[in-house]
């Protein structure tokens, strides 16, 4: 008996490929739904009185209605669109201030690099959600997307920093230094290889993290503001009555979970790994 026996590498790799492909297909479908949300939704955002109040799912109203008689299917589509639209810039913030800055910081003079790593390490010791709330408190509620991106950045910074340090110790770096290639040229080369290899998975990983953070921020009242409701705000609005009208919270929660799941699968994350 071997506790740590591993599956054959080929089968494990093919499963990983299948899961990643499924994740990207899912993200593609979500992108289509988001860009066509105004066309696909039967009712415009926040249109009240479409059906009876708190009507359960039926043939005509497939996701039911909420406390104002809004069509939950349309609202979920609009909410998903709002969530993705706020998560995309946040993902860019995470990539720029986390992955890119972390990689470049590792190649700065040693003392400066270690100081930066230490400072970011302190921020990484604070739960990302609380860090995002603090950033919003110090700026403004409209900055929720940026705050979510910045709160996910310390973890991305640390990962990129470690990878850059590994590459600095790799054989190709030693050859480059021995042949007189400058540090700046080597950094440019490593950056190109790093981002061509990992950009898609880093972006998907960041998208999963910021989608959770932006939704949780809205749920806690620090993110989206009415009338622009994202999925987190929809779930928060359903909190007073979802125990008796499950569909008001279940469908937005399901849409959010599917978005996060697709992003995690596309990133090739290990099961349960923190995004």
């Amino acid at each position: 008996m071997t506790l740590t026996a591993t599956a054959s590498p080929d089968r494990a790799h093919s499963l990983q490929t299948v899961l990643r492909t499924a994740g990207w297909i899912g993200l593609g479908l979500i992108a289509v739904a988001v860009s066509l949300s105004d066309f696909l939704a039967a009712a415009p955002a926040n249109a009240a009185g479409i059906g009876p109040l708190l009507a359960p799912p039926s043939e005509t109203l497939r996701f039911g209605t909420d406390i104002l008689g809004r069509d939950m299917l349309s609202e979920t589509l609009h909410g998903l669109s709002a969530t993705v639209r706020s998560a995309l810039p946040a993902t860019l913030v995470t990539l720029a201030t986390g992955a890119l800055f972390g990689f470049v910081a590792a190649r700065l003079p040693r003392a400066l690099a270690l100081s930066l790593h230490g400072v970011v390490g302190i921020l990484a010791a604070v739960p990302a959600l609380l860090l995002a709330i603090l950033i919003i408190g110090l700026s403004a509620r409209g900055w929720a997307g940026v705050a979510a991106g910045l709160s996910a950045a310390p973890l991305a910074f640390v990962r990129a920093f470690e990878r850059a340090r590994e590459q600095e110790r790799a054989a190709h770096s030693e050859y480059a230094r021995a042949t007189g290639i400058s540090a700046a040229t080597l950094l440019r080369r490593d950056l190109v290889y790093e981002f061509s290899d990992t950009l898609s998975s880093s972006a998907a990983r960041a998208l999963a993290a910021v989608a959770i953070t932006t939704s949780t921020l809205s749920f806690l009242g620090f993110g989206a503001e009415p009338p622009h409701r994202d999925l987190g705000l929809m779930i928060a609005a359903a909190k007073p009555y979802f125990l008796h009208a499950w569909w008001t919270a279940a469908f937005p929660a399901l849409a959010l979970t599917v978005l996060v799941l697709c992003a995690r699968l596309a990133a090739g994350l290990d099961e349960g790994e923190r995004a």
Partner: protein
Amino acid sequence: MLRFVSREAGRLALQLLGAILLAAAISALAQPRARDGVLSFLFAWAQTLNAFARLDFGTSSISGGTALGELAAHLPLTLGLVAEGFAAALIVGVPVGVLFGAGPARRAAAPLVQIASAAPIFCAGLALAFLAANLLHWPVPLNDGVKSGLSLLPASPAGLRAAALPVLTVGLAGAAATQLAIRRAAAQAAGQPWRQQLRRMGLSGWDIERTYGLPEIFAGSLVSLGEVMLALLSAAAVVEWVFNYAGAADLFVRSVALRDWTVVALILLVFAGLTMAADFIGRSVARALCDPGGTP
């Protein structure tokens, strides 16, 4: 070993110093003149640091009491939630990590674990509340609008029911982090060259795993203790909000909303300190397990 612990302790001290500087910078914002310019802010920051050195963490602008008093009133609930959530995380996370840590079970469980861990904590908390209210007919304190305390050492079935949901929600978040740490450590241990060498020496598979494999996996899991603590603290913040409990994480959220920077700074300092301490303990114990002989 001693050298390692000394180095880690030095690192912890530096990190704590950084966290104190950050907390003082936030707390300085409570001073009226701190936003007048860079110099005014630096002056306020220095004053706050000086006060911190005297263990004076300022006054809450909401309650009028000391920030330390506010923290003392709210922190026990959060710490209790985290401690009991950690116990629940071990009960759920360790078997999941061990069962699905290797072999065909890992492949089979991968999509299911992905789906289960993709749900944000607030969604998981609401789902548990829905199941408890509708299937078990438990009272769920979601919508009474009044922040209340919570007995984490319940003496009656009603108290047990009240504590079960928040603890379970925090525990599930911790379990996701725990099982990941175990499976990551198991995968790392699987690639170690000593396994084949010990086999050549005539040791059975079970002996190798019992004597060398399990301690290695346990030690590898402990290295992630800081990550588990982060997951538990995040979950506690959401759970206190969802279930209306007046803990320190809930106080943090309300204090940011009301710009009560002295309380915000103190809670941030305590949470960062907890994560750093967990990381330090995890790393040191892991090192002791892997290197019991005390090689420097």
